[in-house]
């Protein structure tokens, strides 16, 4: 079975090279606002992932019948539909998490990462590729959310996976890891400014890794172009 190289490229783009969180810097509002704990980040990340896959697939499926002039409102409607689905689902099954995500759950509609993918990729490609792109972009976004959430939770409260039972059910209470004990919370890490600072460090870290990779790669020798006189008249 031959795998289309486009898939590999899509995975690389979504997870690292064109990561919606670290490189495109899209959807910063939820990224910074709800990543105070890993569980919040995970909840929002999964919701975004779901919306991204579904909206990409739908947009791609109807791409031949959408008039170009009104495509944006149609995309927004599609995204809003899926966000409403997610919202109702979370309201039904993970009510506490729904409460703690608050307004940022419906605000997924305005997440530019989603409409950006719909416009830039899904509206031009077949369903399979588009949904795979949604999956990879969503995973990339989810990864950034998780890392940011982990950093802020460890710095702010000294725990990891606090409140995992909100998302996964009562058994997950045991997932909570107490890394170290704090007498008082480090509020800066929990408040939005801490998210901005941690985000800056993450982006810097990614750039450092990128430049290390670029240095490690053997440089391609530039072929010297020797000019030959072509003007025979003089």
């Amino acid at each position: 079975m031959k795998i289309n190289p486009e898939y590999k490229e899509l995975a690389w783009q979504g997870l690292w090279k064109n990561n919606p969180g670290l490189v495109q810097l899209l959807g910063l509002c939820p990224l910074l606002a709800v990543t105070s704990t890993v569980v919040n980040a995970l909840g929002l990340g999964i919701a975004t992932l779901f919306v991204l896959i579904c909206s990409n697939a739908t947009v791609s499926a109807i791409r031949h019948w959408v008039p170009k002039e009104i495509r944006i409102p149609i995309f927004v409607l599609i995204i809003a539909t899926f966000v409403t689905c997610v919202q109702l689902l979370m309201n039904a099954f993970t009510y506490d998490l729904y409460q703690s995500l608050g307004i940022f759950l419906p605000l997924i509609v305005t997440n530019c990462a989603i409409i950006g993918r719909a416009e830039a990729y899904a509206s031009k490609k077949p369903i399979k590729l588009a949904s795979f792109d949604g999956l990879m972009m969503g995973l990339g976004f989810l990864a950034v959310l998780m890392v940011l959430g982990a950093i802020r939770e460890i710095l702010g409260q000294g725990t990891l996976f606090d409140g995992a039972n909100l998302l996964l059910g009562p058994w997950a209470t045991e997932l909570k890891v107490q890394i170290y004990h704090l007498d008082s919370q480090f509020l800066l890490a929990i408040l939005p400014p801490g998210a901005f600072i941690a985000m800056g460090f993450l982006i810097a870290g990614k750039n450092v890794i990128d430049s290390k990779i670029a240095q490690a790669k053997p440089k391609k020798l530039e072929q010297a172009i020797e000019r030959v006189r072509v003007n025979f008249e003089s």
Partner: protein
Amino acid sequence: MAFWIASSPHNHQQSETSALMRLVIYAAIPGIFAQWYFFGWGNLIHILLAVITAIVAEFTVLSLRNKKITTQLFDGSAILTAVLLGISLPALAPWWITIIGSFFAIVVVKQLYGGLGHNPFNPAMAAYVMLLISFPLQMTQWQPPLSLLAMDIQLTDTLAVIFTGYTPQGYSVEQIRTHIDGFTMATPLDTVKTNITLGLTVVESMQAPTIGKHFGVGWEWINAGFLLGGIFLLFKKAIQWTTPFSFLLSLFICSFIGFIISPDSSTSTMFHWFTGATMLGAFFILTDPVSGATSVKGRLIFGALAGLLVYLIRKFGGYPDAIAFAVLLCNMAAPLIDQYTRPRTYGHKLGVKK
């Protein structure tokens, strides 16, 4: 023999950064001495901790950035930042407050922006604000002056409180802060603010033991010490007169207007001048040449804005003192102020567009 004719300027200032920084640190000594005399060893310990952390942090970042370590590490700017931070912390704050604050000031506020001369915010004040919003409990446990304490606090007691939270006799910070009559004491500014919300007038608040005869036991002398140091700096031409002058004048005018309008709920002008961190802010913080405005007119506006902000936050805001917040807000405004107060270069006419 030919004369070598150099172009202007002919008079050079030979002093280096380190000399200037050392001068500012010396100038802070009277204030620190007053702090030690009235509040004990706490701030000296914090200054020491902050300086050590700052040097370690500066060394680490400089070596990561492949900079010249010997010259930049000992140019005194990191030490000055640490000293200012140590002065402004509550005397009995736990040790990790200072470590985190000093580390943040050097690594994030100063070095991440490119080191000395590139930081948009005053590192000491940014670190102070970070600590204040991150650890509100620890950062508001101000120690009352020694003369009002029910117990005698020696160097060992202070050390033990800072590093373990309790004195060797087992008293907590909260117990140390408690007056002999059983109520917790705060700073003069805090006392007045709380009393106003309780419906007391300013005149009644002035009876509080922390305020004493004038504007606050100890605080008036600390401010006088920093004023003295500031005048020394002015005399040495280490700082310009413009920023402190306009800051103090602006604070004076604002508090005077407030006092005229409602003397029962506003404190006097001199109370604003001689409590809290007013003089430290005026002469040591706002005069930071990096994060402040540049031109003479710009500095006047910068200082006046800071004075207005300090008064507004002290009077109407949620925090009793406001130097750090005002300084940060003014630092943000400094580039804009600079843009609109660019001085006329010689030979150019006013109002002529190119």
